């Protein structure tokens, strides 16, 4: 049975700084965010010289995109430039999903099991949630490099037509902002879950990203999915994010189910699904964080 931690007045102790004035909380949150980001970036990047790190950051997403390009080439002999563009944009965007989610999970697992610092962060004056956001942001930054290089490879070597002058920048900016928000929210929920489970949780981001990859129409139009699964794809923010970015960069909607929906409808769907996911993820994180604190799991080590 789990004992609920209460102080001598019968109140549950809150998070550090929970009862501080809002201005102090904002300052503390910002400081925790930036400290986490600096720390995360140092851990991510200090194992190699900048060139090797850059190669590492872009090799995976470019490799993943090239597999798809090879498939298109062997089937169509290069006669499907529209599909090639669809694939390149989808693959480029997907670098954020894998990186974003695994950044959160590794932040929890590494700091808890390897560096054994999570307990100190939790009991310090640092705010845990902003710290975690900052700590995971390093992988998002590395993913941004993968995103840009994949698009560049697509344009320069594969003939994907992205005309910078014709890109719908407002749609692109809004789609990216909301889509990345959804990715971060998803990562946060998985990180919360990881607080309560063993280190085998490192597999979770890949499994979740793999499922979403299949359902979000990342590399094929939604019409290819079995009809029973298609509604599930339509409630995922990642589906609308990819569609918004594709429309902004390529100037044409994806043929099929999504093709008849106007740009405003795509943005609205993206807003709604992201909002639901963000609220849900925040609640999930808080619930699991509370469970981890109450059960004393913050400093558990399940490996060496």
């Amino acid at each position: 049975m789990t004992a609920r931690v209460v102080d001598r007045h019968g109140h549950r102790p809150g998070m550090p700084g929970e009862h501080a004035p809002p201005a102090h909380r904002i300052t503390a949150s910002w400081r925790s965010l930036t400290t986490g980001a600096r720390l995360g970036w140092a851990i991510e990047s200090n194992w190699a010289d900048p060139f090797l790190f850059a190669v590492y950051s872009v090799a995976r997403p470019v490799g993943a995109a090239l597999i798809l390009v090879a498939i298109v080439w062997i089937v169509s002999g290069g006669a499907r430039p529209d599909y090639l563009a669809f694939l390149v944009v989808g693959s480029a965007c997907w670098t954020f999903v894998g990186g974003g989610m695994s950044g959160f999970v590794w932040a929890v697992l590494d700091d808890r099991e390897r560096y054994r610092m999570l307990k100190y962060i939790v009991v310090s004056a640092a705010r845990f949630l902003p710290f975690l956001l900052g700590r995971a942001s390093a992988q998002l930054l590395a993913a941004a490099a993968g995103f840009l290089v994949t698009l560049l490879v697509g344009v320069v070597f594969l003939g994907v037509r992205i005309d910078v002058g014709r890109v719908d920048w407002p749609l692109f900016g809004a789609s990216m902002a909301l889509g990345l928000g959804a990715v971060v929210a998803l990562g946060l929920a998985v990180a919360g879950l990881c607080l309560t489970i063993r280190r085998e949780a490192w597999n979770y981001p890949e499994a979740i990203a793999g499922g979403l990859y299949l359902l979000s129409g990342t590399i094929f139009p939604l019409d290819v999915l079995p009809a029973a699964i298609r509604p599930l794809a339509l409630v995922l923010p990642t589906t609308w994010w990819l569609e918004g970015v594709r429309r902004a960069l390529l100037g044409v909607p994806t043929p099929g189910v999504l093709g008849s929906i106007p740009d405003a409808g795509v943005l609205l769907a993206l807003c709604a699904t992201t909002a639901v996911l963000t609220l849900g993820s925040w609640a999930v994180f808080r619930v699991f964080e509370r469970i981890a604190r109450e059960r004393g799991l913050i400093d558990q080590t399940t490996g060496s």
Partner: protein
Amino acid sequence: MSPPGAPSPHLPEPRPGAPDPPPDPAVRGRAAGAGPREAASWSARRTLATNLRGIVGRAYPRVRGSLREKSWVFFEIALPFLSTCAFVLVYRALEAPEAYVGFAVLGGAMTAFWLNVLWAMGAQLYWDRGEGNLEIYFTAPISLMSILVGMAVGGLYLSGTRALVIVAVGSILFGVQYAIDQWLLLGAVFLLTLVALYGLGMLMASLFLFWGREAWHLANLFQEPVYFLGGLYAPVKVLGPLAGLAIGLLPLAVGLDAIRQLTFSQVTGIGVLPPAAEAAILVAMCAVFLVLARFALAYFERKARAEGRLMARWQ
């Protein structure tokens, strides 16, 4: 201090005619009164038997534990299967011939082996160092090659069962039709591919051990680019001039190319070389990777000992 070999002053003198005391476990296996030098000189039979026990001992936890952690079973099957489904749907979206769906299923099954080679062979000694097992391996009276062979045998069983599930489920779900004419050659190519692949894994183990913390990143780096160069989801022939490089370097590329030709004999013109020639390349790869692994292990072990890296965790 008593001279070596003298009876301990704390033990009673044996009575004349009394039976020999039971052997001390600490000196079991060596002749009574033999010094450390004599004790260290083992017969070839004994060395072989101990190394075989080492192989079985290292393979055992992998075989025994293959079903123990249920979440691992799920992830090891589900992750390659999800990728396979995604690529199958791309082929369907492109209205490719049905045999291409089979290419993706076979590629998905082979990813189970590649992931195992990469993470459970290549990066394993690095993990073992972090966990404190590496020092036990070095103090055990066996060759480190036996440890690696044990890891490979256990890993083969582990990923073989996963690959089988992926092929079975993928073939049923997507209705893959195989056309196999040369079963014997197919079996030989498959086995040679696995030996060459795990030989490469043994070579990578020593390299990763030396590279230390980069091992993690390198293992990550070798995933998607190798899927691409190895032709896991699309025949390697499509790579053009790069196909030659892939066939010459990656056992996965040459093995899968031959396996595809032999399992989909109804589809012509997909192979870089005839299957028999690719089998010969695999034989050469087996020899080269195993010999290289042996030398690399000895070299990096010596170097790591000199630089004090063997026990240094998280470096």
